């Protein structure tokens, strides 16, 4: 009895040691040091269409960071508003074209624009635009959006700063920045368009993805409201360059196409028509008239906007979330112009989308893992 017991223990311990030894040998025979030290980090996030959607939303979230600034900077540098005693010195300095002394002015932090650009570059570099399902290249329309957002961001940069470095390669390593040739890659109003066209903007079509609605915690917002219009961005870019008449012609063409495609035509009740001549007439031989507003244009504008519930007149909107829980709140414009954006505490149990919300949170947890979340460190 005693003997058996000893045997048993000895056997099991020896077996355990043998197993460990085998494990050890196999571990070190069949893997190199670099394999052993490679941690599965889930770096790749472009394995399927779902991932690109998250990246697209990531880009839009970055656009939220510059959207308000775009409004504020334009107003500060424009002539229609002037700063009062109630706004900060920073905004005073910008409005008066003073240099902020410490250079820490967040309003002028150009890196937020490049955050949009770099995330777009990452998307563009990794997106499989040839992926086909049911005979449709289903990635294309989202890809067009990203191309357009990047172009729009560069357009804003050049309008604000005159000349900025241009990069279309994603920066995923410090080496990219280290080896970047600034001198050869500066863009301004004259060469921006060429660079963008060469990097794929020229091939952008006018199809749009279908994302349904977002909910910002208080209201539903149609995803289509958040699309960037490639034709308008292209039109702006040609207009910005304005090198010769063909640029204006191109710009006008893009605007025209946009209006035509988006029910932008206005009834003759509100406009007067004058026969066109020359270049502009060539633009649309089938309708060679120029239109100008009649007296009741204001009435038209008011009813038009009202009847269309503020939406169809909107080209691109960047939504704010209703509270900080659900994302970035856009409060700066409201703060500066002194009005309070209305928001209410959302009732999470009531209407809305109870089940998708739960999924949303689960997804978030999964992505925390995927994204090598670093919060606690």
């Amino acid at each position: 009895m005693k003997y058996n017991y000893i045997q048993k223990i000895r056997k099991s311990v020896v077996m355990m040691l043998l197993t460990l030894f085998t494990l050890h040998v196999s571990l070190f025979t069949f893997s190199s040091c670099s394999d052993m030290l490679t941690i599965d980090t889930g770096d790749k996030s472009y394995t399927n269409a779902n991932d690109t959607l998250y990246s697209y939303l990531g880009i839009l979230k970055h656009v939220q960071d510059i959207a308000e600034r775009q409004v504020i900077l334009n107003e500060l540098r424009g002539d229609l508003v002037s700063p009062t005693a109630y706004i900060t010195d920073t905004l005073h300095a910008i409005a008066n074209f003073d240099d902020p002394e410490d250079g820490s002015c967040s309003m002028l932090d150009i890196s937020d624009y490049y955050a949009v650009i770099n995330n777009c570059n990452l998307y563009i570099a990794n997106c499989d635009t040839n992926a086909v399902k049911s005979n449709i290249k289903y990635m294309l329309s989202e890809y067009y959006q990203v191309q357009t957002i990047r172009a729009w961001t560069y357009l804003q940069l050049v309008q604000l700063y005159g000349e900025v470095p241009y990069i279309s390669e994603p920066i995923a390593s410090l080496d990219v920045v280290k080896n970047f040739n600034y001198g050869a890659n500066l863009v301004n109003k004259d060469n921006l368009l060429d660079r963008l066209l060469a990097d794929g903007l020229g091939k952008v079509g006018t199809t749009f993805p279908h994302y349904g609605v977002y909910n910002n915690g208080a209201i539903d917002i149609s995803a289509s409201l958040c699309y960037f219009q490639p034709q308008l961005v292209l039109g702006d870019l040609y207009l910005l360059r304005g090198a010769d008449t063909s640029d204006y012609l191109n710009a006008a063409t893009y605007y025209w196409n946009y209006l035509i495609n988006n029910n932008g035509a206005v009834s003759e009740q509100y406009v007067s028509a004058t026969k066109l001549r020359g270049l502009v007439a060539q633009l649309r031989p089938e309708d060679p008239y120029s239109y100008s507003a009649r007296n009741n244009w204001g009435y038209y504008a008011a009813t038009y906007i009202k009847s269309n519930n503020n939406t169809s007149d909107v080209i691109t909107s960047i939504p704010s979330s209703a509270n900080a829980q659900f994302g970035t709140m856009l409060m700066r414009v409201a703060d500066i112009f002194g009005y309070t954006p209305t928001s209410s505490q959302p009732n999470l149990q009531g209407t809305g989308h109870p089940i998708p919300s739960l999924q949303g949170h689960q997804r978030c947890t999964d992505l925390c893992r995927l994204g090598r979340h670093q919060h606690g460190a």
Partner: protein
Amino acid sequence: MLQYHNIIRVTAGAILLSCANLLMAQEEAADTTQAAPRQRVARPAPKYEMKEVKGKVIDAATFKPIDGARVQAFNDRRYSTMTDEQGNYTINVPVFVTSLYVTVPQFNDQQVAIANGTVAPVAALQSTELKSIYQPTTSINSTAVANIDMSSSISIDSDIEKQLGGDIRTINRSGIQGQGAAMFIHGLNSLNLNSQPLVILDGMMMDLQLDRQSIHDGFFNNILAGIDPEDIESVEVLKNATSLYGARGANGVVVINTKRGHSMATKINVNIFGGFELAPGYTKMMNSSQYKNYVSELIGTTKFGKNNSTASTSIPFLNDNPDYYWYPMYHNETDWSKELYRTAFTQNYMSLGYANSQSTAKENGFNRLNIRFNTDIKLIKNLSTQLDVAYSRLTYNLRDNGWAESYATSTISSPNVLGLIQSPFLSMYGYYTGDDLKLHPSQVYAGKYVNDDNYPFAFASRYGSNTALANPYWILDNGDGNNKNNQEVTQFILNVQPKWEINSHLTFTNRFSYQLNRTSEKYYLPEAGIPVYNLVGLGDVTSVIKSFFGKETALFEDARLSWHCNYGSHNLAAFGGFRFTSNSYSDDSMTGYNSGNDKMPDMKYSLQFRSVDGNNDEWRNIAWYAQGSYNYREKYYADLSVSMESSSRFGKEASEGLKLFGVKWGIFPSLQLGWVITNESWFQKLKGVNHLKLTLGYDESGNDAIPYSSSRTYYQSAEFLKQATALQLVNIENPEIQWETTRRFSAGINGSFVNNRIQAGVEFYVAKTDNLLTLKANNYMTGLGSYWTNDGRLRNVGADYHVNVVAINRKNFKWQIGASLGHYKNTIESLPGGNHIDKVYGAELLTAKGQSIGLFYGYQTAGVFATSAEADKASLRYPTGIKNDPYKFFSAGDVHFVDRDNNGVIDDGDKTIIGDPNPDIYGNIYTQFNYKRWALNVNFKYSLGNDIYNYQRSQLESLSGFYNQSLAAVNRWTVEGQRTDMPRLMSTTADEWVNNERFSDRWIEDGSYLKLKNVRLSYDLPLNLSWIQGITIWGEANNLFVVTPYSGKDPEFAVSNSIFYQGIDAGLLPSNRSFNLGVKINL
């Protein structure tokens, strides 16, 4: 042949007990003496030229000869003999033997230098009750050992604190049970990475999760609390020569060894004790009428006060008409802190694996169940294995403790803070009820519903937002429950080390360990009794629900080949090996608000503002290491070691190190030299010096605690809009990121003098840490903030001293006294990114070239302006930051901040260094008396020259909000000409507010202290029983008194493990006097 050495600690149940008995039954007698490291086993001695040495062994206390003492050549058991009845011995040893080693049970071992002579000095042995420096082999590294016996600690940290205070700087985290201590060896060896030592438990490296957070404020999940101190045999601190630990050794190493069987006889030690800790004191606050004065005056300075009437008729609590309906609600005298604390009881059946300990803060406590089997099994000839299994489960009952750094996510929820700042004119449970509708105590309804007309706690919210404070008793009462506020930790350790003795020179061992650590924590701030709190950007909340689950698994392997050989006067030993660690940590936490009902405290879908968070970190290290040791005649020693280590956390193109097998390896060499001068023949003439050792060393080691993914490009999820999750690039790889390198020179001298009555030593060190990990701003084109890179250098220069004197050594009375002292000076030598300031608890901490780490950087003050004339004379201005109205003036009653740059404006240019949290010296002072069977130990801990930022006081004397203020605030400036050091009160919304409460030297205090840590009296019962070897009864008192100029209750606290938080008092529960009574039985 199967043999066991068992040491069985802990059995929590009959099943385990019976298993243990089975194991014990298998014991068979055999020679199982375990060879100490590097000590040679018996084998036929080669032929050397021999000499005969004569000597005598006596008892140092009685001078009587000792019969039967074992005498051997030092570190060579092949030559040994025994003393005769007169204590004399004659031993034949080779001529090159320079010292002998004497061992007798009940006495300390002693090394006796003979050099080339043939007559050994008389060896006067001291009782084991006294301290000894002698070891069977000579170590030339700077180490310190604490042997643990009859511990009364919950966590081993406390024993380290008591015994190794000068070797390792320990800072007790708080008075909550099991919190342990923050530890630093040889200064602060890193700026942004972990700077606490590596802990090795029974040969395996542990991850103490120092960078992890708890969802309860002021609480740290101390991994070391999972080890029962009664299971621990010894703790050793390695202060230099940590190159063998490669990229993990730069902060020094703490080696913890648990008890193992040293002989075949099964020994069972039972240590049972119980005790209590007295309720702590707390700051005296203003009473009801003082607070009423204060708060009414304060309201006058708020926007409300300026726009509305502040007459007593319009402010309910000012109405002193006893017939007024609300009069009883606002006319109480409540000491809110009084009932929050208690005398806390502790029961430890440690040897049975169960400890239960209350905290002096009510509803806080700790219990632990643990089981450990340490087994040594001889499998076949030459092959044996250690097999250790340990399991422990810890349960904490918790509430928030101390001040949180930010109240962005919840109202003030810590009962010990609320006890101070809640309004004294409110009552705990007063409620308008009953037939007469008068105020009666009601523990059910008082303050339960925030919308109640009777709700007293929101009285201040009329005058400012988020000013209502919670009732701490509701938090205690309604936060109580298994699913509400607790943490449960499960630790499991499997540790196997087979050992193959290939021949008498060569041994192969391969340690394999598995550790599992699971933490589950629940947090619940109740609905009832918590006033509405507005979270910026979210909305109104009352209850807060959080849950946390964390898990870490670690695999550890250490394969080692050891060799040793003796060639006459040359001793050689070497070992080399391979080490692999793989850690995987993940956690998830969730937060939600407004449970609606305290009976349903769980995470659920209906909660508002739910958020989730998580970490998923994996890291692996591989290291190769080797050490060669040489000594010549036990006189001259040299250890040369080197290790190379690579880690998943290093960049692939790390700027230093060696590229091999596709990865970068850090190379860490070390050379230690030693010289035992007393073994020199020419030294023999110097009487009074029994042993003298000089050591000199250089070592390099690294710190690999770089953020887990800083060498990688990765994305992070974020919310774009509700339900629309976005993925954004948040970090780009820095392929050059690498370990921090610490290069340390050390020199030491240790000796034993005057018949070993005085033992003293000193060790000096200079350590430089290169490649400090610092944050650098990313290029703007990346769109990212900053990235980690290696840049900068810091230096630690210091010394450790220790001395032990046996003042009286008589048969019946012994007295020894000793002290240890540590000192370091920490300097940042280079900081390419420039000086920077970290903001912690409102403090600004300066990191600047030429300065120590973490200096307090703020304004100097020169009292309070007593008169307008004084203020006008100084004419200091406060910058508003608004262009049209850029300045306001400091006036009478405001703090006189020193205008250092003389520009008339109190601004950033006036900030200077106002304090240094680093101590000048720290350590222990102890003494021990032995009278017959009685022993009295007295142990002090001290720290001198460290400054404290008293954050708690800065809140209790801020004079700008609705918190109740300390009694000192009564003396605030109120009338022209009043001389006081307390400024006038001023609401932060007032135009006259000039931020008197800002971070300044008003809040910096000298944190030096001398603590009587422990007084213990023990008595060995005079028993003579065959089945009991001994019974010791002991009683002790801890923290009996503290001598300190510090105004807080306890000058020791650590609110976080980062070095930047070490001198910041966030009002954690203080440790208080505690008393224990115990009995130890050896079977």
